[in-house]
């Protein structure tokens, strides 16, 4: 008997029992859908994680002051280290091969105020080089210019959250904000950036949208230091021509600064690209785990198919006997029931794919959890569901094929 005919027989059999067929594939539907939704959630988390490293720059190396206690700070100062300084930046720029730019910055936590509104922010003093190392695009207005930097103007660019908290949806450009006890003119606002929810290396977790950027020159002149031991700057962002030599370059940088700081261990080096690769690897394991849990539900769905097929074969024993009596071979019966299982699981798989896509989109829509649908997850979920159907359909089909013709035709 031809395959096409087997399929049409299987379809007839299944359409005759619409409701039962639907119940049979329910497990497959939910199994497939949950594999797709779970992977979409995992992929969404991964995408978000990667985005935050991209905000730090994948060909950048970050050098930061270590977070030291006052006592430790006093000790390293006694041992001649001045902490991070413009001299360090200059040394890196001159010695490190393949360097494009070095951007120093200082930062301090201050409340930004406008009228009676206030927003907790991190004020960051930057140099114009920042635009060479990071992709800082403003949403409104313009970023701080070299001219503004040179003239040590009191201008500020607000992070998206600060702008919203202080000015709601009005345009902040041209308005004034108070940082500490100093008034600044807002010249621009930043686009919303990916959330920084975890600590990245030595970078404490922070929301980049709470940043307020001002010229470093102004920062050093106008913003009081935290204490007498504070270093000249807090961070250096080094941009390299390519990301192939990040590890080697990081070692060179460590060497240079070690020498400048008289081997005091008062700074740390962060390579975002390396952290990103590591996180990617971790999230791959995490995704695999998520998918495996969902796959178990798919297997349970397969057991459902087996269960109901066994019952259906018992009920259709006489039909099997009749088919055998008029010349159906074992292989024909096996084929018929296996085809039923395959048709069932393919239908379940298709419905499951739609449900899974619907769920993934729905999750983002309702809960704000980012999901990311990928073709590979859909293909894997679908083929896995079909495989489960065939595997669990085989046993009942084999049993049907092996029924003795004479006994099954006598079956009441």
């Amino acid at each position: 008997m031809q395959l096409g005919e087997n399929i049409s027989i299987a379809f007839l059999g299944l359409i005759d029992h619409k409701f039962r067929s639907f119940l049979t594939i329910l497990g497959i539907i939910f199994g497939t859908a949950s594999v797709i939704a779970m992977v979409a959630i995992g992929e969404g988390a991964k995408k978000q994680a990667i985005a935050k490293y991209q905000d730090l720059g994948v060909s950048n190396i970050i050098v930061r002051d270590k977070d030291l206690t006052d006592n430790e700070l006093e000790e390293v100062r006694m041992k001649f280290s001045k902490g991070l300084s413009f001299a360090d930046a200059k040394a890196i720029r001159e010695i490190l091969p393949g360097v494009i730019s070095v951007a120093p910055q200082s930062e301090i936590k201050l409340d930004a105020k406008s009228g009676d509104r206030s927003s907790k922010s991190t004020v960051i003093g930057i140099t114009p080089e920042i635009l060479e190392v990071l992709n800082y695009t403003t949403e409104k207005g313009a970023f701080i210019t070299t001219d503004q930097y040179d003239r040590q103007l009191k201008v500020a660019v607000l992070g998206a959250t600060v702008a919203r908290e202080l000015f709601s949806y009005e345009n902040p450009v041209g308005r004034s904000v108070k940082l500490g006890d100093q008034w600044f003119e807002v010249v621009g606002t930043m686009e919303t950036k990916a959330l920084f929810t975890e600590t990245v290396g030595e970078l404490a977790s922070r929301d980049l949208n709470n940043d307020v950027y001002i010229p470093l020159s102004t920062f050093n002149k106008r913003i009081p230091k935290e204490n007498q031991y504070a270093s000249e700057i807090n961070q250096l962002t080094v941009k390299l021509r390519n990301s192939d030599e990040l590890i080697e370059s990081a070692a060179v940088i460590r060497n240079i600064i070690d020498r400048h700081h008289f081997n005091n261990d008062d700074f740390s080096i962060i390579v975002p690209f390396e952290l990103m690769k590591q996180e990617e690897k971790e999230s791959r394991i995490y995704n695999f785990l998520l998918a495996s849990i969902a796959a178990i539900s798919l297997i349970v769905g397969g057991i459902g198919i087996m269960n109901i097929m066994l019952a259906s074969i018992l009920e259709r024993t006489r039909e099997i006997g009749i088919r055998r009596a008029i010349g159906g071979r074992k292989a024909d019966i096996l084929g018929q029931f296996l085809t039923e299982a395959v048709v069932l699981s393919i239908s379940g798989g298709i419905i499951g794919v739609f449900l899974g896509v619907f769920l993934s989109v729905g999750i983002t829509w309702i809960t704000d959890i980012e999901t990311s649908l990928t073709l590979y997850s859909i293909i894997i979920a679908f083929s896995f569901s079909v495989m489960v159907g065939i595997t669990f359909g085989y046993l009942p089909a084999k049993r049907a094929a092996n029924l003795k013709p004479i006994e099954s035709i006598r079956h009441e």
Partner: protein
Amino acid sequence: MLIDIQNLKKDYLMGEFSVTALSEINLQINKNEFVAIMGPSGSGKSTLMNILGCLDTPTEGTYLFDNMDITQLDDDALSAIRNKHIGFIFQSFNLLPRMTALQNVELPLMYAGVEKDERLKMAKASLEKVGLGDRWRHKPSELSGGQRQRVAIARALVTKPGIILADEPTGALDSKSGIEIMEIFTQLYEEGHTVLIITHERDVAACANRILEIRDGMITNDTTNINTKIGELSLAN
């Protein structure tokens, strides 16, 4: 010779006991015979017919069908013989309830690998032969008992089998439908078919040209019937 059975024995194993359903059966049937098998309930008629129809296998003895040794064949070969050479008709019709008359008749051709167009033509011709050319769309539940049995006969005939085996084909029918069915069998016999029926009714057996009597699993009587009743009927017509 179409069928040659030597020293056939059939035991059913019931746990520790074994019930002997047939023993010392020797039987030869030629092409174009019309044989009726009679005997009390439980005497082994159905058992014999199931073995003849390759649905069941004997415990001992040999069975040659068209010079093929049936006892030596594997399951696929037996299926092929049931498909091509044997037309089974049951007391309870045994049609597939969810299929139409036409689909039921088509089924053996499907297993024989006949193409769709050819299959439809043959199935329709077969239904016409039993007088149901206009009922092919109906499902078994929409047909009378006599019509259902005629669909079953059409299904048995459609592969042009060497022998037609009918186990009490009129057993579930009223006498009028029973006569109609017997007329079909007689016609088939007259066309050159080999027909074997099991019956409890003398008048039904009277249609055949040979009557076997079975008692306690053994053939006790084998008589030739010269004056077949339907033969008289057709003469009267």
